[in-house]
């Protein structure tokens, strides 16, 4: 087992427009990517539980061309609105960094 950050080039979050947040998990090695992808560890239920969201609003896409897993959710607060704490959406990936994954 390894932590997700140890097997990835990049874990990031970012706005996809002001109304959506998107997370990219880009793996270093294709073999690890395929293991994590096929183990379906990063799934809507787990993500929803971690981010306190209903799994129905969590969209997960496996992107083989870049050995990446993408997660997109509606923004709980529109970018820059009065109660938004992260205008760029750039610091939302923290809870993903130490996820235990097969290496």
């Amino acid at each position, binding site marked *: 087992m390894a932590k997700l950050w140890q097997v990835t080039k*990049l874990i990031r979050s*970012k*706005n*996809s*427009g*002001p*109304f*959506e947040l*998107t997370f*990219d998990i*880009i793996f270093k090695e294709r073999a690890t990517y395929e293991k994590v992808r096929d183990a379906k560890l990063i799934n809507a239920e787990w993500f929803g539980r*971690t*981010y*306190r*969201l209903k799994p129905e609003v969590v*969209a997960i*896409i496996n*992107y083989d*061309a*870049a*050995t*990446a897993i*993408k997660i*997109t959710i*509606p*923004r*709980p*607060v*529109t*970018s*820059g*609105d*009065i*109660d*938004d*704490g*992260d*205008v*760029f959406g750039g*610091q*939302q990936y*923290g*809870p993903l960094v130490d996820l235990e994954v097969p290496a």
Partner: protein
Amino acid sequence: MKEIRVLSATGILGSGFREETLKRAMGLKPDFIGADCGSTDPGPHHLGSGAPQFSDAACKRDLRLMLMAARAARIPVLVGSAMTAGTDAQVERLAGIAREIAREEKLNFKLATIFSEQDRGYLKKRLKEGRIKPLANAPVFDEGVIDRSSHIVGMCGAEPYIEALQNGADVVIAGRSSDTSIFAAMPVMKGFNPATVWHMAKIMECGAASVVLRKYPDCNFAIVTDDHFIIEPPNPDYRCDPASVASHNLYENSTPYELVEPSGILNTVNARYEAVSDRAVKVSGSTFKHAARYTIKLEGAELAGYQSIVLGSVRDPIILRQFDHWLENLVKAAKDRIRAVMGDSIDSQYRLDIRQFGRNAAMGVLEPDMSIGHEVGLLFQITAPTQKLANSLAKSLSHIAVHYPVPEWTGLITSVAFPYSPAEIDKGASYRFNMNHVVEPDSPLEMFRIGYEQV
């Protein structure tokens, strides 16, 4: 083989590029230079207030080098989403900078300006006709939203750029545009395969963002033929590889497989990314499906109120052990005090929001870990209809906060550390994005006005 050579000066005009890289890229004989100048990334302020993200000086520095290079080579310059939000005044501002540069450098060119701010009457008409449709997670849209917005822009496609180029424009400065349209316009005009063109445009619109390790903003370069494009960064210290180029489809996009444009959808499911050297990548295999209805995305922002903030931190372990309870009571006491000063009717005129740094300031309701360390930072934020009111309420609040007690200590305590005097900071107007919708116009040009002048 027919080809077109595309130079992207930088990911966002005003963020910079190396002069040396531009020179090198000009040696590769580009057919035009493009640069995006806008984004919704920095939030609603720039659309709401009209203030640009970058300084005039920063934009002028980038535009000067682009204009001088392009006029020497007799190729067009296309800049979209002028001065961040692409409002009419921001287009005028950037056009003014272009005129200044022309005077200073003795350049001559035909300038086209594309205006993308929207007429409220037009939008109300399209709304009545049912030709304004919501996108994902869109807020409510009605005539009230149209009236309340300080600015509404339409995100133009490639067509207004093509119109300007066909009318002989050497330099195009456009209001809000889809980032890709800037780079797609000329290749589409010349009849290249739209799938290749839009995929290239998606990669190129962010300048050097698709290189393996982007240490600073810089130019990028692509050679487009009908069935593929080759991307190779002109900066010798940069390289692209198939993964870095494929990864770029992930960026700021809800899916890497689709890119929605006014005229259709790029699909990259079958795209191939092949290394042609250790720094160049060949991309092919995407498809483009023309949309049944042409659509223009709207962006609008309205005033949310004026804000005053108070920043402080709490270090006392006794307070931190009962933090939620302490803070909840502090808020009650502050609201009581504000009511005592301003009368009961004040309740509906302001909002008090508190951000807790060290707990969930970054993630808000998404935060799974609300544990407390040895210190918590607090940002109290008052939002009210005027700055004066926000400031008076913040003054009442900060005095309650700084001395708010806990039962363990007797006597007057000072419970919050303020880094500033005065503790209250006026933050000015705050705006909110208020639409995520598309319009179905009769034609791609209907929502945009193009002006021409000889500079």
